[in-house]
């Protein structure tokens, strides 16, 4: 129960294979198969090594983050150890010499089924209309165990459903696996969720059981991404979208984030990392959008604004201006913006003032594009398809509205889009490949890689290098900025000027870099931060990866592949961006740019007023 960020009891850092080689080896038998494992290995891991997948609802191993969540709470993973009176939870029972283990004899199967029935005795029976139906681990496992009737009747939880702008909490559906708690506290260090109360009354909730919206939640959605039931789901905007698409008075335009095209195919049985850009465009067109545009275009625009801001700040810093703060931090990620507004409000003047690509697209669509199309602002609906749940909240922020009308009306997640395509009776796999519409559909390779950790800063480096040095980059790939390590750093040579770049993905890693800056220990000129592990490709709105980090790597590789295949790979060379500045904005960081494309941040920390 006692769980502190830096003193973690529920989860332990996983041993690396090298560490274990030094350890004593242990021989045991699992389901009549012999195996030798290093001391300290759990029965669950040993079985996995033999190809035996023991079912579980709470265990979670996020390999690349070094995090293993094994509270032994759900009791689904029990196995029989010969000579022991009780069944053992395999996820947190260590292997011992000579153990003889049965993972699927009748006693084990009966126990699992009983545990499942007990869980279901305090679970609502609304599977048919539950948002998680078809994607729910509890449902899948109840089916797998052959639960056909319930023998237990008892008290039922009755919690109020908590609706926030991004995430819906329906705690009647919670099975207390506490994965969300590990994501929120240990991976993200947000600390919005904790198990409270005890016994039957226990529930995962924000402090004082307040609504999520009033807590320190950043809406990163990583809790939703790991929830095995319908307890945590996204706020669904598909019905609103269907209504708007059916309204002949409305011009409905859509923008699609880079990470969506690398994951959407998974919902249709395609291999992880399959690029479905063209098929996605044709699906959106068939759904009835008036125009299908690309957030990647807005990403190129972000680079123009953010890159210019970086160079301005850098130049002033080099000229000895002590008022200029470095490092500059990226500001594309709304989960990350929420994080520093809540947890590091004293540093809110360090991030770039550039809006996220989603929020750059909105005002350009509702001014420049609306003008070109001859559509009035109030008749235009801008929808975004995002891998992200924090984007839903970002759409609703007051500073992104004009007279109450949001620049981006609402955002729907990759998962919601997949459902909508299925609802429309389309099979993504068989759709033809089509191109985005112009002028807001043309993008460069730099815009595409925004979806992966390191991608934003690489895109910025491509443009900033050429603008600063006046030279053409021979090689646009900055391999040193790529990868999956939680915190990375690299120095890029700007023609004799070394630029130190830091990258963090996952808010726990971001916290470390921020604490260094606060302590005056940071040597970076620029830092890229993305709230979700892996970047947007691992966003809270993406198809569920069930902790399999190889899926994230495949999605990232897909984006780099698309980048490589692009004719233009530097944002400042996008002809439609050049035209946008010529016809409308003037130049990067101009007065109009500042009005439409930049923002400011708020102190959202819990102020303690002293009387």
């Amino acid at each position, binding site marked *: 129960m*006692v769980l502190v960020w830096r*003193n973690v009891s529920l989860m332990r850092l996983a041993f690396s294979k090298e560490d274990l080689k030094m350890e004593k080896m242990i021989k045991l038998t699992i389901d009549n198969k012999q195996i030798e494992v290093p001391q300290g290995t759990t029965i669950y891991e040993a079985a996995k090594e033999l190809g035996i997948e023991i079912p579980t609802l709470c265990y979670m191993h996020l390999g690349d983050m070094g995090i293993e969540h094994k509270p032994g709470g759900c009791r689904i993973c029990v196995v029989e150890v010969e000579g022991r009176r009780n069944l053992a939870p395999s996820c947190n029972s260590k292997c011992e010499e000579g153990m003889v283990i049965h993972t699927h004899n009748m006693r084990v199967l009966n126990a699992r089924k009983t545990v499942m029935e007990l869980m279901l005795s305090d679970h609502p029976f609304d599977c048919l209309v539950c948002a998680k139906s078809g994607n729910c681990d509890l449902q899948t496992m109840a089916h797998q165990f052959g639960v056909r009737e319930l023998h237990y009747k008892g008290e039922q939880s009755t919690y109020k459903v908590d609706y926030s702008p991004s995430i819906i909490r329906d705690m009647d559906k919670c099975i207390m696996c506490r994965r969300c708690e590990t994501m929120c506290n240990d991976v993200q260090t947000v*600390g919005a969720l904790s198990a409270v109360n*005890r016994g039957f009354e226990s529930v995962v909730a*924000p402090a004082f059981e307040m609504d999520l919206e009033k807590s320190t939640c950043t809406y990163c959605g990583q809790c939703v991404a790991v929830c095995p039931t319908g307890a945590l789901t996204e706020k669904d905007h598909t019905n609103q979208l269907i209504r708007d698409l059916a309204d002949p008075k409305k011009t409905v335009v859509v923008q699609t984030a880079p990470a969506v095209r690398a994951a959407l195919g998974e919902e249709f049985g395609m291999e992880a990392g399959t690029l479905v850009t063209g098929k996605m465009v044709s699906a959106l067109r068939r759904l009835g959008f008036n125009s299908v545009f690309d957030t990647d275009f807005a990403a190129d625009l972000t680079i123009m604004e953010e890159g210019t801001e970086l160079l301005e700040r850098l130049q002033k810093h080099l000229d000895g201006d002590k008022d200029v703060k470095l490092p500059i931090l990226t500001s594309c990620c709304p989960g990350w913006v929420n994080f520093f507004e809540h947890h590091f409000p004293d540093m809110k003047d360090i991030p770039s003032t550039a809006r996220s690509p989603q929020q750059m697209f909105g005002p350009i669509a509702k001014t420049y594009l609306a003008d070109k199309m001859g559509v009035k602002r109030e008749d235009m609906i801008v929808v975004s398809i995002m891998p992200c749940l924090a984007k839903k909240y970002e759409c609703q922020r007051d500073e992104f509205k004009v007279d109450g009308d949001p620049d981006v009306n609402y955002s729907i997640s990759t998962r919601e889009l997949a459902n909508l395509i299925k609802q429309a009776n389309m099979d993504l796999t068989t759709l033809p490949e089509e191109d985005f519409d112009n002028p807001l559909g043309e993008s460069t390779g730099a815009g595409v890689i925004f979806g992966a950790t390191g991608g934003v800063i690489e895109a910025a480096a491509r443009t900033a290098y050429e603008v600063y040095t006046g030279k053409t980059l021979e090689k646009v790939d900055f391999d040193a900025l790529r990868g999956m390590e939680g915190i990375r750093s690299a120095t890029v040579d700007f023609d004799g000027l070394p630029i130190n770049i830091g990258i963090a993905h996952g808010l726990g890693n971001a916290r470390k870099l921020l604490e260094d800056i606060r302590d005056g220990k940071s040597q970076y000129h620029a830092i890229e931060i993305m709230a979700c592990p892996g970047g947007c490709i691992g966003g809270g709105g993406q198809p569920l990866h069930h902790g399999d980090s190889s899926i994230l790597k495949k999605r990232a590789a897909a984006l780099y592949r698309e980048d490589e295949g692009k004719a233009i790979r530097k944002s400042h060379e996008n002809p439609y961006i050049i035209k946008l500045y010529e016809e409308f904005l003037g130049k990067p960081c101009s007065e109009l740019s500042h009005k439409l494309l930049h923002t400011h941040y708020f102190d959202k*920390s819990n*102020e*303690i007023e*002293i009387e």
Partner: protein
Amino acid sequence: MAKIKLAKSKVDKLVEICKSFNNEGSELINVLHKAQETFGYLPAEVQEIIARELNVAVAHVYGVVTFYSFFSMVPKGEFPISICMGTACYVRGAEKVLEEFKRQLDVPVGETTEDGKFSISCLRCVGACGLAPVVTIGERVYGRVAAGDVADIIKEYQS
């Protein structure tokens, strides 16, 4: 987010308590003990300050406060009455004693009388099973309490 109001003297006292435990997050339970001893209970404001001082999430502090029945978020009475409901006390009639306290003071378990004088709580075993059933009021321990003794005990505190 809503602002929290707390008197400066209270904030200073809390900061001092946290400092006496080196502002270590792992000392949370000890800090909460000391804070409850000082203020009588642990309202949300107090938990917020402790979270800030120990650099832990306030959700976590609240989780710990709600887990242990010893901690309370409502003010206790001037004379907090605790009735032991451990096995030994229970079998020797603690439940009847509890019912009598509730009846005489007209207040349920976990709450405080309107005049703020008495609060009733139950606890599990004070380690004096030989004296069962046991009732404690503040620091004072009463042994072998029968329902008939309750009126006299209350009277002691009512002058």
